C-alpha cells in the first residue's frame, strides 16, 4: 500500500485553494499506486480549513496548537514527519508555494527521502511512478525517479484541477504533537500585501506590467479593474520596488495559468515566460516589435501601452454595455 499525505496550506484558518489542487494530484498518484489519500492541516484555529479539506473526501489529521501559529519550518517539519509515519505515507505532497518550498526539504532530510520540486505530472504506476518537473526555467521537462522508499514532492497548482467535493466528507482527527523543543527561529512580523483583487494564482484573467510601465501602474490597474483581473509584474519592476514582491510572475515568482494573460511593456525574458506560458490565451503589448514576448503571444499589438491600455479598457467597458 502506498498512501499519499497532502500537507495542506491555510491562512488565518481558511484553506488555500492550492491545497485542493494538490489533493487532485494526490488522487492521481494514489490511483497509480493503489493507496489512500490523507490530509494534514497545521496551524492555530484551523478547524474550518480542516473541514474544507475533509469535504474533498480525504481523511484529515489536524495539528492545532499555538506553537504552530506561524509556519516555522523547524516545527512544521517535525509534525509532518510524524503524520507521514502515522499514515504510512509513501508519498508526501505539498503545494509548490513559498511555505511548501521552505518546509518540505526539511521533512525530506528527516525522512531520508528524495524530493522533486514543482512537479507537473506523473508517469508510470505501482512502484515505478515517475515525476515530471521543469528544469532550466522550464526550458526542459525532466522525468525523474526518486530512489528512496519515501518520496516527497511540491506540486505546481496550475497543472492539476482542484479536487471536487466528495459525496461524503472524510473524518477529521487530531494528531498528537511530537515534542517540538525550542525553535531556533522566531517569527517577528508579517506585513501582508492587502488587495481587493483576486489572488494571482487563482484569477481567470491576469494583467501584468513590465519595465515599459516606467513604474506607472495606473494603466495596468485600470485595465485589471475593468476585467476583474489580478495584477502581475515582471522581475524588473519588483526589483525596482515599483510593486510588491507578491506580484512577481516567473521562474522564482508565481506560476500562473489564467484563461487570459495580458502582458503590457514586458519584453519576455525566459524567466518571466516560465511563469505564464501555461496561460490559455496570451496578449502582449510592447513598443518593440522584436520583443521575445511576441513569439509566444497569441495576439500581439505593437505600440505604446500608455495609449493602448486605456483604449482597451474603454473597449471592454463598452462591450459590457
Amino acid at each position, binding site marked *: 500500500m502506498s498512501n499519499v499525505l497532502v500537507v495542506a496550506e491555510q*491562512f488565518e484558518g481558511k484553506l488555500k485553494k492550492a491545497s485542493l489542487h494538490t489533493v487532485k494530484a494526490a488522487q492521481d498518484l494514489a490511483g497509480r499506486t493503489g493507496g489512500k489519500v490523507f490530509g494534514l492541516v497545521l496551524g492555530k484555529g484551523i478547524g474550518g480549513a480542516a473541514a474544507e479539506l475533509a469535504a474533498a473526501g480525504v481523511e484529515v489529521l489536524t495539528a492545532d496548537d499555538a506553537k504552530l501559529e506561524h509556519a516555522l*519550518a523547524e516545527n512544521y*517539519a517535525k509534525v509532518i514527519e510524524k503524520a507521514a509515519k502515522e499514515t504510512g505515507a509513501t508519498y508526501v505532497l505539498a503545494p509548490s*508555494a*513559498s511555505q511548501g*518550498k*521552505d*518546509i518540505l*526539504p*526539511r521533512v*525530506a*532530510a*528527516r525522512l531520508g*527521502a*528524495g*524530493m*522533486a*520540486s514543482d512537479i507537473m505530472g506523473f508517469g508510470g504506476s505501482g512502484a515505478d511512478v*515517475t515525476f515530471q*518537473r*521543469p*528544469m*532550466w*526555467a522550464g*526550458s*526542459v*521537462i*525532466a*522525468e*525523474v525517479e*526518486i*530512489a*528512496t522508499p519515501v518520496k516527497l514532492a511540491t506540486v505546481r497548482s496550475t497543472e492539476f484541477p482542484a479536487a471536487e467535493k466528495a459525496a461524503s466528507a472524510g473524518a477529521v482527527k487530531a494528531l498528537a504533537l511530537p515534542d517540538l523543543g525550542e525553535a*531556533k*527561529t*522566531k517569527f517577528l*512580523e508579517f*506585513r*501582508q500585501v492587502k488587495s481587493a483583487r483576486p489572488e494571482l494564482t487563482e484569477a481567470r*484573467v491576469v494583467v501584468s506590467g513590465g519595465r515599459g510601465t516606467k513604474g506607472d501602474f495606473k494603466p495596468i490597474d485600470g485595465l485589471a479593474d475593468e476585467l476583474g483581473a489580478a495584477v502581475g509584474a515582471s522581475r524588473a519592476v519588483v*526589483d*525596482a*520596488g*515599483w510593486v*510588491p*514582491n507578491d506580484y512577481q510572475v516567473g*521562474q*522564482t515568482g*508565481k506560476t500562473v495559468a489564467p484563461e*487570459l494573460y495580458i502582458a503590457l511593456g514586458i519584453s519576455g525574458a525566459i*524567466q518571466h515566460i516560465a511563469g505564464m506560458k501555461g496561460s*490559455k490565451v496570451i*496578449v502582449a503589448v510592447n513598443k518593440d516589435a522584436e520583443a521575445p514576448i511576441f513569439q*509566444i503571444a497569441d*495576439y*500581439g*499589438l*505593437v505600440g505604446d501601452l500608455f495609449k493602448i491600455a486605456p483604449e*482597451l479598457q474603454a473597449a471592454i467597458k463598452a*462591450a459590457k454595455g
Partner: protein
Amino acid sequence: MKILCAVKRVEDPEQKIKVKPDGSGIVLEGMNYKPNPYDEIAVEEALRLKEKQGGGEVVVVSIGDASFVTEMRHALAMGADRGILVKLSSATDSDGAARLLAKVVEKEKPDLVICGRQAVDDDQGQTGQLLAEYLGWGQATFAAKLESLESAEEKNKVPGLQIEGNTVKAIREVDGGLEFVQVALPAVVTTELRLNLPRYASLPGIMKAKKKPVEELTPEALGVDVAPKVKVRKMSSPPARKGGTIVPDVATLMEKLKNEAKVL
C-alpha cells in the same frame, strides 16, 4: 564572524537550453558557464556583513569537477577570502550536496551559511533547507531587503540581513507579503533576488583571487556517499507555444478575443 557561501556552476541563464534528440541531457556544445546568480547574491551579502562588522572571514564552497574552480575564482575576485572545492567524480543531487556541505560546516564551524534559494539549472531549491535540517539549525529562506534595489540603502551597500547579538534578522519574501524572522546563530539563510545587487570583480580583485588558497576535498575524505536520491530518467522539450498574430489595433484585438479566443 565566519560566513560560508555555497557557489554552484550553472549554464549561463541567458543562453538557450536545448534538449539532445535522445533525451539523455542538454546540448553542451558552445555552452558558457556562470556562477549561479543567487549564489553571487549570497557572496555579496556575506562580503557586506563582513565589511559592516569590520572583520571576519568569507569562505566559498563549490561542489563539482575541477572546472568549477573558475566560478569559485569569480567569488574570490569579488572579495571572498578562500575557497573549498569538493571534487566530485560522479553526479549527485541537492541532498548529496547538502550532506557534503554539512560535513564541510562541521570542519569549518561558520556562524552563518548563505546559499542561493535555488540553482537555475535544476531549479530544485532544496539544498539550504536540507543543510539546515541536517545540522539542526534554524533557517531563513528567500531573504530580501526591505528597500528596493534602486534605493539609497542598496547604493550604499547596506546588507539586507542584520546581525544582532547572537542572531540574524531576515526579511523573507513569502506568498502574500513579507515575513520578518530572527534566527539564532549558527543559521542558514537562502537568498532571494532582491537581497542585493552583486558587485563586479575588480581587476585588482581578479589578480588577488589567483593567489587566494583553494583547498580540495573529496566525498570519500568527507565520508559522504553522494549517490543521488533523485535521478533524471529522461529530458524533453516543453510543448512549444506558437507565436500568433500581430493585430493592427485595439478594435481587431477585441474582435479576436471575443470571437476567436472567446475569452471575453
